[in-house]
């Protein structure tokens, strides 16, 4: 009985199977390792012949996977001009220009992001953003007024905001992905509000009840939701991380926190001088910042590296020490130039982050087909923006 080698396009797990147990070509197969689904195609190669050694026939059709790079072609000098003119026009128009400024800035970053030499583009209509901006601005204005006058009213606002938070996330995601294109094909997001409310409200509410023990699992659910509902044209993204991998990220923190808390408590009970107190607080904040950067870096790496699309697997290998250095030197540069180097810092970070992401797979992104779409409003996106949360992967 001939053995057939089956390879999962998402996690590269491969297994030799007897030809007789294989399903019909075209059937969907579940990967035993990552759980990802992929169509079983005829090109699965006989065991022992890894593509290149294959004889004549259909098994030779499998070409070698290729690695595609992200590159960033923007520079600080150009972006400084865009940034400062945006700022000036924003002020003299009392903020009305903001949506145009936002689109211009985004377009600069998107159009300078190249995947395999082809740029992305951002096509949001500034007028749609202006409308969303006005609605979100009214909400934010009322909230900030309420928070200064009546604590009860501002609590009410917070509750309303928590209630609509998952909706905001979905709307914002739809708006942003729909308006992002690559090779003139729009990205998109499927509005699954039920799962949004489960991942971003229900599980989130359970977090304090479990003393934060389910936090990694909640993050896993959220990332899974964000990735799996995204698509490029009609091609869906796949997510094949396991909750355990998210727990592993938080393990080192378990060692770190008792140490820091122990030191702080020791200082507190020894009734140290104010200098000792300041030193330990500084130590605490440094540890906190480092831990925050570590967690966000590890999450980004894991999430990207667990994402695939159309048989192409992403890899992201941001390095903690690089990022800590970049964040630190960027903040120093921004503070000491009173913000004038902010554009330089933004470009520098974009450069680093993008160039650590690669996509590996067979065939490239030449055969993605577009989906039929309708217009979406920008209210969710602008509300999310006002309250300062970033929805990057």
């Amino acid at each position, binding site marked *: 009985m001939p053995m057939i080698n089956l390879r999962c396009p998402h996690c590269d797990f491969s297994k030799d199977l007897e030809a007789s147990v294989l399903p019909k070509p075209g059937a969907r197969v579940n990967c035993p390792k990552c759980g990802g689904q992929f169509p079983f195609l005829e090109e699965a190669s006989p065991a022992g012949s890894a593509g290149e050694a294959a004889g004549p026939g259909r098994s030779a059709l499998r070409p070698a996977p290729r690695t595609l790079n992200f590159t960033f072609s923007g520079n600080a000098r150009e972006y400084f001009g865009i940034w400062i003119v945006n700022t000036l026009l924003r002020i003299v128009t009392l903020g009305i220009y*903001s949506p145009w400024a936002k689109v211009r800035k985004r377009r600069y970053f998107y*159009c300078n992001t190249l995947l395999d030499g082809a740029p992305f583009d951002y096509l949001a209509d500034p007028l749609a953003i202006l409308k969303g901006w006005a609605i979100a601005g009214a909400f934010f204005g009322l909230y900030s007024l309420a928070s200064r006058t009546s604590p009860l009213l501002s609590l009410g606002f917070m509750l309303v905001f928590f209630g609509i938070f998952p909706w905001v996330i979905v709307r914002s995601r739809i708006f942003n992905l729909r308006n992002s294109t690559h090779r003139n094909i729009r990205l998109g997001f499927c509005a699954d509000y039920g799962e949004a409310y489960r991942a971003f409200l229900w599980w989130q509410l359970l977090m304090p009840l479990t003393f934060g023990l389910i936090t990694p699992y909640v993050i896993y659910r959220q990332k899974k939701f964000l990735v799996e509902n995204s698509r490029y044209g009609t091609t869906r993204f796949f997510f094949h991380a396991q909750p355990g991998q998210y727990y592993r990220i938080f393990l080192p923190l378990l060692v770190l926190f008792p140490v820091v808390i122990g030191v702080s408590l020791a200082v507190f009970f020894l009734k140290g001088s104010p200098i000792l107190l300041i030193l330990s607080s500084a130590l605490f904040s440094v540890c906190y910042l480092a831990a925050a950067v570590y967690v966000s870096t590890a999450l980004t790496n894991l999430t990207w590296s667990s994402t695939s699309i159309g048989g192409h697997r992403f890899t992201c290998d941001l390095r903690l020490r690089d990022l800590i250095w970049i964040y630190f030197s960027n903040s120093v540069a921004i503070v000491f130039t009173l913000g004038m180097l902010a554009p330089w810092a933004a470009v520098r970070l974009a450069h680093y982050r993008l160039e650590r992401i690669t996509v590996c797979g067979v065939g490239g992104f030449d055969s993605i087909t577009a989906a039929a779409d309708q217009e979406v409003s920008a209210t969710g996106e602008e509300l999310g923006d006002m309250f300062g949360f970033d929805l990057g992967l």
Partner: protein
Amino acid sequence: MINSWPAIWYDGRTSRGCAVTVSREGDALRVVGEGVDRRHPLAEVRVDPGLGSVRRMLRFPDGATAEMTADAFLDGLLRRQGKGRFFSRVHGWETSLKMALTALLLTLLVAFCCIRYGIPFLAARAAFALPAATSEAIGRETLQFLDKFAMQPTKLPEGRRRELSRLFRALVAGRPDLKGCRLELRSSPAIGANAFALPSGIVILTDRMVEISTNDNEIAAVLAHEVGHVTRRHALRHLLQNSATVLLVATLTGDITSVTTLAATMPTVLIDAKYSRDFEREADDAAVAYLKGKGIPVRVYAEILARLDAEHGKERDSAPRFGELFDNHPLMMERVLRVMAAEP
């Protein structure tokens, strides 16, 4: 044809790109390449205005695009269409170093003028134009909140309370603009020695403040200072100014997102401190004017300020804290000197 430019053609239905050449034939654009040969009236094609040095697109009505780098050709098309003039000019500004630096200077100038003159002026106009009901509601809510969380009823003896009320009434007597103004006495270990005015004209005096004063002239001076805040509607103006500054700083530092980030709150904290310093000075002037009018030596006000500062200093020593960085400690000495200088 000589005037043809290379481009990458994407039909908008699949992601496959193919190399084509684009040329202008009269009032139409011609795109020729492998499997592509089409003409479009120029008026129907959207041309991306310049942005940095990114690749620009020709966008055709059926959703197809042609990605190009031939900037001069595209600018020529835009001119011919008579479209995108504003953004072509913006692009010119952005790319010229001289213009970008001019924009920088203008930005700083406009922001400075707004913060220094614009916002305080508008806030003052708005504060005096707002109906009394607004500030009454704010004042009531604040008092309720403070009573619940930070203050207890006064522990001063009944006679002393009456004396203080009389003192306050004498201060506001015959002033129609101070109709709703009243004095509230409270005990508050959390606040310590202090006096402050709420937007609705309620002046709060803490027991500790009364204890550290040596005579009623000092108390009268402090109350005159607070009444100065009330007549000038400082509390409401402060609230309006701070809301406006937050918006301005948010506009300045980029997306409104930054409202929540430290980088944006630092300048607002500093501007806030500057505004409250201005208000304190104005109210000090009111107190000095009151004392002079009554023939009381201005020195008594300087003395109570200095004592208040010493009192707060004592609290600081017993519990060192980070907040000290933002404390108005040096400010108080400056105020004392300023009051002393006002003495004839």
